[in-house]
Each structure stands twice: as structure tokens, then as C-alpha cells.
């Protein structure tokens, strides 16, 4: 398994709401977890309408780490993505 296959394997196992961060030691897989904190967001649509609403704040929680992407994929396969 090369790095591309490993990344695609992680994607198919863990779907979305995750991030793979490059570090000095290798790669960290983290899951986004919703917190109680709320943040105000202001968006302008292509029609020019401006809406303001509150969204939940998320934090990235470390789940697994490994020196290479194939090793990270193997770890996640045995431990799960959460």
C-alpha cells in the first residue's frame, strides 16, 4: 500500500469530519468533536443577501498517529476512526 492508497483507505473507512495533520514525527489522525461553544457566522450569498447565524464550534481530537500514511491506515483499521 502506498501513501495515496493509504489516504483513500482512510477516507473510505472514516468518511468525513476528520483531518490528517503532518508533524515532524509523521501523521496524526484527528476527529472533529462538537463542543458547547457557539460562534456567530456572517455570510453573504451570491444574490447579495447577508445572513447571520450561530454555529457550533468544533475541536480536533487526536485519535491515532504513525510515521507514515500506510501505517496510520493500518492503525485506524484495527482501532476504528473514533
Amino acid at each position: 500500500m502506498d501513501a495515496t492508497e493509504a489516504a483513500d483507505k482512510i477516507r473510505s473507512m472514516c468518511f468525513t469530519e476528520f483531518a490528517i495533520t503532518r508533524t515532524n514525527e509523521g501523521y496524526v489522525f484527528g476527529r472533529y468533536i462538537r463542543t458547547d461553544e457557539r460562534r456567530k457566522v456572517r455570510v453573504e450569498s451570491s444574490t447579495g443577501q447577508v445572513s447571520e447565524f450561530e454555529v457550533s464550534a468544533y475541536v480536533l481530537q487526536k485519535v491515532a498517529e504513525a510515521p507514515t500514511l500506510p501505517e496510520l491506515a493500518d492503525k485506524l483499521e484495527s482501532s476504528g476512526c473514533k
Partner: protein
Amino acid sequence: MVCANCKGKKIFKNLECWCIAGKEDKTPFADCKMCSGKGKYNSACPQCKGSGKSPDSYELIFINADTKKQAVVVIGSNNLPALVMTEGQNSSYPDKTWRNWSLPYGDIFRNAFAEIGVSEATHFMYYRNSPIEFGWSFSDIVVADNRMGWDEDPKPEELQRLAKRAAGASFAWQVSQGGPLIWEFRSRQTTEELLEKLYQMVSVRGYTYQFEVTEGNIATGESGWGLWLVSADAKETYAELAVAYDFDVALQSGIEYWDKNYKRINRTVKKWKAEQAKKQK
């Protein structure tokens, strides 16, 4: 030939404006940029840019950037290869009832790539100087299908009409947008080498990078890989470096984007950090 998208209409009239889409009371937004508060707008066909026509033929050029070798593939709606019908009985899918008809350009493109010595394993494909998914658009052109096998199959003359239309539509979008029909191939490093290269490039300036699966960032709404510039401790996200369906394409795009824009991004991040520090005082 007549544009396959608007069928020669040129302009789509009285379309419901986005500012009332999904609203129960259907009240338009008074200052709407699209309809000026009318609730409806007209739009030129995006495929032919309002000309009502598509080209009859396309000359596609493929270039190996390293050797300068070129291959040309012509798609001419008046000189099409024989249609190929694929039946469900020959398919690996459990549903054996479907049939589809296609123009077998996939092999023609594969031969052209082989002729100039490029492949997905050794090269990235570039369109307008940006890396794109290898082989994008370069497969058989689907003309018609009968997925459930319940309807009557199209008659031979109908199939010929549909085949001409499909061929005429195949690269109409690029032509209407003024895009050249030239694709370049540049030799590539392995994914491992690219991952390392990007890390060297961003870490020397005190950053790292992060991959996420993004939804909706790609125009058609499908999910793909997003590549982000983040702080060394990964607590702050600064910029989107690339988004692509393929992991490798996102990586290569990110490397090239950072290479061209790192000074500007670096300045923006420093300015933002200074503002944050001021706010905290």
C-alpha cells in the same frame, strides 16, 4: 451543430431567482444582485455562451512536456467510430438488465497517451497550467443507456442522432469558455516524495499542512481532498492550498500554489496574528 444544452434557445428566460428558492412566501430580495428584486432572471446558456451552437469537431492535443512529443485526437461528429453496445449480461454488476451505447474513444485516448509515453503512474496531467485528475474526460463518450431494461431501446437512426449530439457536446464547455484543447503531461514524483517536499516547504516558515475530506467545495458538490495550511501546532487554520478529487492532485496543486503564493500568504498570516494579539491586550 445546435448546442446540446439549450437546443439552440441561446437564452433561458424567466428562471426562478436564487433569492426566492426554497422560500414559502416567494418574496424576492429587494436588492438582489441577480434579479434586482423581480424574482426572475434571464441567463445565457452556459455551454454555448448564448450562441446556440456547438462545434462539429474538436482537435485535442496532448503534449509530453519532457520530450515535447505530441499526439492529436480528432472528435468529428460527421466521422464517428462505430457505436459499442454493452449489455448487462457481460457486466460484473448484479443487475444484468441494462444496456448502454458509447463511442469507444477510451482506447483512442489511451493509445495517444502511450504514443507520447505518459501514464498516470509517471505523469501529472495539466490543463491551463494546473494539475488536474489524470484521464479526466478521456474515456468512452456515453451516448444512451437503458438502465432498467424496461423501455424500448433507441432505434439505430435515433442512436446516430444521439451519438452526434454527444460528440458535439463533449468539449463544448471548454471551447465556449475560450479554453485551448491542449493538455500537457509533466513527469511526477512519488506521493511520499511530494508529501515530504510540501512539509519541507511549509515547515521552514513555521507551518504545517492538514488534509481533510471536503464536501461541497468542488463545484459539482461531490467530496474531494482539501489541503490546508495550518499552524505548527495545528490549532489555527490559515489558508486553503488546494482542493481536488484525487489525493495526489491536491498535493501537487498545493505545492505549486504555495510556491507561487507563499510570500502573500505569509504576510496575511502575520498581519492576522498581529491583529489577534492586539485584540487580546
